């Protein structure tokens, strides 16, 4: 092995390239930019300002947060639904004035003031909501107008009543407690903020109303067509925003007790900056409560620090404005380019050195030599089928197969000319198996493991397994169940070909040559599913060995067949049976003479074999060349092998002309005939085996029936 080969081998074994793409595909990655920004802000000002990181500093920040972050969460909800609320600053000022007027001049008790002020906020929000939600006005200009109107109203009130409000002072302890109290050393309003944030988060992520908000923001038209009351949802977000601003106003009033005319001026820009900086997208649909919160922390830290640094006047608006521009620009560019970046880095090939393959030429001495035994294969359901990946027989000899339309089709014995749609599963059935009671088990791509009883009742046996501890992508969901077999004790062992790709792009997994697949076991006793073997290269066909404690499985891109012990003294061990198959093995099934049939879905090509040793080449290809032009494994013509348990290939059957039955992904021996399926085929092939036992069926043999 050359130096560059061993370098590539080690480099691709130990550098986890695939993690980058997986991290980028997570939703929480949107938080990374604001979080990094927060760290920079803390580091910068922490080093510039002495005492920046002291408990007292944090206490001040927490109390301010308890006011501003409330408004941010309200505005955040409005933005998530695709709107914007600029009137929050004026609502805040109005709430401040009204609560001081009620408690100081009119002497209302605190328990009456709070709901009254919240109602004022809700009313202002309702005005916005009716105008924007129901009358369909433009949010930006409408809330601008209400900003001016409410601000003018506050100014008028201050002109008329400021003296009265300022002259009298309440003596309410509860009121002061709202503004200055601590619980366990934490400001009261911060605790309330935490409670509100948690509730808002739960509503947004777990409840119907929150989902409606996200749906409306994500796509207004789709939400409308899906029957969501778009207008009411939009209106409600403005009401919430008004209430939140009013709540913040109450705390502000309780803390400072001043009715100054500049209360809340410019607050909307601060809060808007906070939301956008936190990563809540303009135009809606993307964002969270946490993002509003983190954005507010950043903005408050920056503005407070600028004040404490005694920066000249003008620097605060300058910095805030630049921050807003930067945040919006990053948001827009990120949204626009994220999926492009993702598609560039997601495919991450690794080094894989395939062993030299035995020749399959016509005059080759190996048992792989090409012949024309399949010349006389007859077709079943020609033209009616689309993608019979696998087929299976019940105890009455009826033939079942799947199809791309999501059906299971049944062909009636004995001549298999009549057929009916047995059930409609809704997904593409790949591997099929039959238990001893004629219950059909199917691996359905994208859906999981399903069972169909003879009475056509469909049951989902499993669509998730245990989440592995350190995987970044969620591997608990079964995306690509491929083939299965049923153990003597009733447990179903099935393969999931890859956890990184789905139904539409599984072929891309071939470029990676990494062990992305696994074998799962479903236990009918308690309905649980566990991963029993992981890190295999596209595990595909599965076939039980008669000893009852091991199974054979094919790793397609690795061109090998291995044996895995799931019970007994060798439990957990894997042993390669054949490692140098000249093609890509698919399903494995039992033969009447105690050996095994293996379908090769395609044959290896020297070019692709070579590329497996050049991961950098495949990466560049995935990045720079259009997907249709990529080098893929050849999956168009193959053959059927017969192999013994010790790995000796005794026979191979080919269709030399490629006319009778090319592309074989599955074989099933039944009563002296070999049935052939192909995932890209439009028929099932039938090949007579005159020498074989004409009464043998796999089901009877395996389940001990006669």
């Amino acid at each position, binding site marked *: 092995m050359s130096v560059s080969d061993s370098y590539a081998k080690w480099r691709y074994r130990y550098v986890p390239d695939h993690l980058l793409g997986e991290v980028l595909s997570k939703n929480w990655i949107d938080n990374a930019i604001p979080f990094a920004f927060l760290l920079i802000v803390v580091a910068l000002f922490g080093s510039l300002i002495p005492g920046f990181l002291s408990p007292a500093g944090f206490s001040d920040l927490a109390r301010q947060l308890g006011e501003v972050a409330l408004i941010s969460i309200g505005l955040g909800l409005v933005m998530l639904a695709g709107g914007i609320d600029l009137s929050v600053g004026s609502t805040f000022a109005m709430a401040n004035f009204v609560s001081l007027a009620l408690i100081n001049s009119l002497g209302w008790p605190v328990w009456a003031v709070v709901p009254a002020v919240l109602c004022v906020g809700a009313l202002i929000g309702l005005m916005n909501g009716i*105008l924007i939600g129901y009358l369909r006005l433009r949010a930006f200009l409408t809330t601008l107008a209400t900003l001016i109107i409410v601000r003018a109203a506050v100014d008028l009130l201050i002109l008329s009543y400021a003296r009265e409000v300022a002259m009298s002072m309440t003596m309410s302890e509860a009121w002061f407690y709202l503004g200055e109290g601590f619980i366990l050393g934490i400001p009261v309003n911060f605790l309330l903020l935490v409670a509100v944030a948690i509730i808002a988060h739960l509503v947004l992520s777990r409840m119907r109303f929150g989902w409606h908000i996200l749906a409306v923001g994500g796509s207004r038209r789709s939400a409308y067509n899906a029957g969501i009351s778009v207008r009411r949802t939009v209106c409600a977000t403005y009401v919430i925003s008004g209430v939140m601003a009013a709540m913040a106003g109450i705390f502000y009033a309780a803390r400072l007790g001043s009715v100054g005319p500049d209360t809340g001026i410019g607050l909307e820009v601060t809060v808007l900056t906070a939301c956008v900086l936190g990563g809540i997208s303009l135009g809606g649909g993307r964002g969270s409560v946490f993002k509003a919160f983190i954005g507010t922390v950043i903005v408050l830290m920056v503005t407070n620090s600028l004040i404490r640094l005694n920066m000249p006047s*003008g620097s605060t608006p300058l910095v805030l404005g630049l921050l807003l521009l930067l945040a919006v620009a990053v948001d827009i560019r990120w949204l626009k380019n994220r999926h492009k970046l993702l598609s560039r880095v997601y495919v991450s090939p690794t080094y894989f050195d395939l062993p030299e393959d035995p020749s399959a030429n016509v005059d080759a001495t190996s048992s792989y030599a090409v012949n024309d035994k399949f010349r006389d294969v007859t077709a079943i359901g020609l033209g009616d089928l689309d993608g019979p990946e696998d087929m299976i027989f019940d105890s009455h000899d009826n033939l079942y197969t799947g199809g791309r339309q999501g059906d299971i089709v049944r062909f009636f014995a004995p001549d298999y000319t009549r057929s009916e749609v047995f059930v409609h599963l809704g997904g593409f059935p790949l591997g099929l198996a039959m238990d001893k009671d004629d219950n059909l088990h199917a691996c359905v791509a994208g859906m999981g493991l399903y069972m169909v009883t003879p009475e056509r009742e469909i049951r989902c046996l499993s669509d998730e397994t245990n989440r592995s501890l350190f995987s970044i992508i969620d591997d608990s969901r079964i995306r690509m169940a491929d083939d299965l077999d049923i153990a003597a004790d009733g447990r179903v062992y099935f393969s999931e070909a890859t956890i990184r790709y789905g139904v539409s792009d599984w072929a891309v997994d071939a470029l990676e040559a990494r062990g992305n697949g696994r074998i799962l076991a479903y236990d009918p006793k308690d309905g649980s599913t566990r991963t029993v073997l992981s890190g295999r290269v596209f595990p595909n066909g599965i076939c039980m060995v008669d000893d009852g404690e091991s199974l054979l499985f094919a790793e397609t891109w690795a061109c090998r067949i291995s044996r895995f012990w799931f019970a007994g003294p060798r439990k957990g061990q894997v042993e390669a049976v054949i490692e140098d198959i000249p093609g890509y093995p698919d399903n494995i099934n039992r033969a009447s003479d105690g050996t095994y049939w293996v379908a090769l879905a395609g044959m290896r090509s020297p070019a692709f074999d070579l590329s497996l040793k050049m991961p950098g080449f495949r990466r560049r290809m995935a990045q720079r060349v259009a997907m249709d032009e990529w080098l893929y494994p050849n999956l168009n013509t193959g053959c059927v092998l017969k192999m013994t348990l010790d790995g000796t290939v005794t026979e191979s059957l080919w269709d030399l002309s490629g006319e009778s039955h090319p592309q074989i992904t599955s074989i099933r021996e039944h009563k002296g005939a070999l049935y052939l399926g192909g995932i890209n085929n439009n028929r099932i092939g039938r090949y007579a085996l005159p020498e074989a036992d004409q009464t043998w069926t796999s089901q009877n043999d395996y389940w001990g029936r006669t």
Partner: protein
Amino acid sequence: MTEIGTTKATKPVWPRLGLTQETIVLFIAIAFFAVFGVTLPGFLASDNLLSLLQNVSVLGILGVAMGIVVIGRGIDLAMVATMAMSTAWTISLMNAGTGALTAVGLGLGFAAVIGIVMGILIAYVEIPAIFATLAMSTVIYGFGRLALVDLDVIYVPEDAAWLRAISGTIGGVPLPVIWFGLVALLAYAFLRFTRRGRYIFAMGDNYEAARITGIPVRPMTVVQYLLSSVIAYGAGIITASLLATVNIRVAQSTMVYDVILVVVLGGIGLSGGKGGVRNVIVGTVLIGILLNGMTIMDLSFTLQNLVKGAVLLVAIIVDSLVNPRDEQTAQQGDI
């Protein structure tokens, strides 16, 4: 295509009467004029009418600039900040002894740079115009306060006679009104007869279609904001000449909403592609009469704001009734 912007700009509200928003507003303006003329003492005095025209002309010039941007489906919320800071810099440079030509050149250059920066942010970085200009207005104010101007109120130097002459009179007509007329005429000619003017309508009508047709939409967007900033600078110089001072606090006031009010009232739809200079003139006249009447009635500044806000709200409601949007036609992210 050739009819857009010069004839009926909007669909008639009441088709049977053949009324457009523009003519309705014009009638309302005339009605207000008549009512104020009868009820308010001194409204029809020549001094008052002259000051009305003068005040209105600056608003009108800004309205023309805003109109150009709005027709191209944009909005310029930084216009007043640009006007205030660039003019204030010019005047404070003159106070510091810089030559008038240099000072004006620098101020104009500053305004132009602002316009180009905004245009690039909107056209190339693809920030929505409303946010780019809102943030820019804060940035411009902050930057100007930090680096260019020391005081909130700057007085025009005594020896700058040419500056005062800008707001003089010719044959009894105040020059600002003539400037307004000139700007309106040039803008009309630009929008109506030049190829680039037609591009702006096409972009406002259907931005994507304009882009596919091969119109250089990105450079044209920059041109729009460049134009609006430069025109705003001109309006700022006229204001400085009229008042003999520049108050940079106007950058943070609600003046820019008056400008939007003028544009929307006149009947230029905010979704772009509709309207023209005539709509701006009509809107300007109505707002001028309204403001002047309220000032004579001695309504407080706050109350005037309230009325303006309410009128703006009504104008937007009418706009949305005339140009309705619903779930099927609204554009995603169009706020």
